[in-house]
């Protein structure tokens, strides 16, 4: 049976070039932090990777901190703004907020006290150590942001606001603006959503946030390598990225931090990454990630156009053959590889498993498949009712996806939906 992988937003296969380079780097076993030849050899791989990662988001390589992946990058950023008693002074950049003795743990933004006061953003600057104890995120963030922020809010007494999205899954700038105040320390909105592929207007969001003196983070895990990203031009202070979504191995990612933005290490106990991330540097995975960044950079225009064509063909083919489907997302602002459709009267886990038995891999927003009690929080935030949320299927294409595979899916899916609808208590 021919197997077709349309779950590239979950993870991607290793690009053969990345795999070859990964193998080569694995042989260079030296610790990149060591001064001797073995160490320098490994360090060279990391150096190259840092440069490639920087190029992919048009950033200074020195501002790239390698991590274990998107989740760690996201946790790192949130923890900076949810530290008990305020933000620490970190190794290099000397961020010193206030909030040492505040009854509310919070982040002092623009503190005049402490050494090396940070370059300040926006009109809220210079207010003299005012405590900022609120975080604003979108309602459709990945659990790595959503659940972490909820936990930190609970633990550190931070007030958390969720910005709603419209029916197409876009964050509403007006609603976001209403949630940001002089108490807001951080605004975190993903660059592209993992379920719908909808791209957010981070430029507008960053402008609004900075006008009120808040820092801005974007989880760019799904956007990286799929659309051009210029971190500074977007107006970001932090950006999270992951290797295994761009044909690199699992367990590696990076956090980009604008020079001067507050920082507190998440992992302590080592001087690696300029004191910003303790732990022996995972040189081979970082090397492979760097190779993947370079490939993404080179292939982005071609990949993006080709995948958008295949995605549009998939959508048209399905909509032509299957009545009562719903497109979830915003076609005008979508990743080229992601298609999310809901099928009335059919439940997602059943669709997924029938397709699995045909050798086709997709994912669903149904509660049944995730083991959680609620269907996708992303689709629910877009206003979808239970039936459509449970009946949603995400097709995420990748570099290895072929036109032939798309035609096979277009042929195999209609009988699956017809079957489930025939046995359903619901009628379309």
């Amino acid at each position, binding site marked *: *049976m021919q*197997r077709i992988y349309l779950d590239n937003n979950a993870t991607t296969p290793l690009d053969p070039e990345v795999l070859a380079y990964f193998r080569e780097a694995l042989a260079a076993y030296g610790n990149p932090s060591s001064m001797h030849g073995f160490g320098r050899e490994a360090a060279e791989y990391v150096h190259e990777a840092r440069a490639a990662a920087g190029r992919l988001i048009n950033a200074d390589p020195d501002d790239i901190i390698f991590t274990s992946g998107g989740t760690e990058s996201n946790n790192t950023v949130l923890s900076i703004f949810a530290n008990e008693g305020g933000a620490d002074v970190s190794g290099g950049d000397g961020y010193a907020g206030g909030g040492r003795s505040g009854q509310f743990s919070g982040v002092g933004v623009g503190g005049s006290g402490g050494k090396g006061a940070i370059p300040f953003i926006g009109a809220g600057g210079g207010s003299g150590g005012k405590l900022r104890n609120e975080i604003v995120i979108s309602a459709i963030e990945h659990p790595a942001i959503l659940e972490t922020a909820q936990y930190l809010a609970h633990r550190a007494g931070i007030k958390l606001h969720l910005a709603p999205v419209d029916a197409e899954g876009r964050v509403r700038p007006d609603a976001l603006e209403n949630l940001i105040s002089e108490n807001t320390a951080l605004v975190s909105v993903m660059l592209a959503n993992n379920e719908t592929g909808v791209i957010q207007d981070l430029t507008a969001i960053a402008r609004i946030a900075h006008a009120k003196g808040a820092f801005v983070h974007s989880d760019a895990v799904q956007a990286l390598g799929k659309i051009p990203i210029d971190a500074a031009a977007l107006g970001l202070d932090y950006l999270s990225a992951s290797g295994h979504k761009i044909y690199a191995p699992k367990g590696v990612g990076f956090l980009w931090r604008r020079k001067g933005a507050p920082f507190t290490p998440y992992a302590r106990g080592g001087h690696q990454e300029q004191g910003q991330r303790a732990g022996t540097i995972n040189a081979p995975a970082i090397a492979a990630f760097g190779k993947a960044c370079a490939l993404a950079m080179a292939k982005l225009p071609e990949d993006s156009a080709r995948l958008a064509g295949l995605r549009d063909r998939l959508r048209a083919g399905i909509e032509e053959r299957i009545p009562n489907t719903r497109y979830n997302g915003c076609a005008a602002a979508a990743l080229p590889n992601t298609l999310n459709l809901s099928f009335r*009267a*059919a*439940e997602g*886990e*059943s669709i997924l*498993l*029938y397709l699995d*038995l045909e*050798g086709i891999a997709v994912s669903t927003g*149904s*509660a*049944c*498949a995730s*083991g959680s*009690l*609620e*269907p996708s929080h992303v689709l629910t935030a877009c206003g979808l009712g*239970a*039936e459509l949320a*449970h009946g949603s299927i995400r097709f995420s294409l990748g570099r290895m996806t072929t036109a032939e595979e798309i035609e096979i899916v277009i042929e195999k899916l209609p009988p699956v939906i017809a079957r489930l609808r*025939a*046995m*359903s*208590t*619901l009628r379309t």
Partner: protein
Amino acid sequence: MAESSAWVYSDTVKEHFLHPRNILRDDEDFAADGSGTVGSVQCGDEMLVLIKVADGRIADCRWRTYGCASAIASTSALSEMAKGMTLGEAARITPKQIMAYLGGLPEAKVHCSVLGDKALRAAIDDYAARNGVTLGKEKRPPVIICDCTAASDQDIMQAARDGAVTWGELQQKTKIGTGCGKCKERAMEALDEAIFEIHHETMKIHE
């Protein structure tokens, strides 16, 4: 990777998922003697069971399910199990028996997807009500309190008899409210009533 090894569910579940038995087709005229529906789309699983009764036994059975693979397979399995049983036997089919028939289900799936027994009981109660038949000691059909798990007032009564007083204890004994949780208020009211009733019974015994 061997595609046949370690599928999500057992081979029997897979078989019933791929080839479900006794589905109610749109083009068939199944004159049911009783019908029952449980679950809700909100929770992700909804089931309809139809029965034909002859000589006090389930002569034939049809069903429809909106839900996941284990919901489909468990209803299909139930429809096979129930045929030929007396109404009393069929009314006593438990989720445990359905699971045993299917060769087991993942723990997370048991409470949300094995609702067929409750749909069947509702169909039997419907038959009984239509024909003025009394089945066993329970004269009145159970009232479903929790749409997600199909736990009824009778399940709550049983839990109360088994000593449940708090919401946590009630959940432990009945799995009630482990889906969307919306039924908590109603369930606790029903539990209070049940405890009151039991207390009353006890008083009567002492009188």
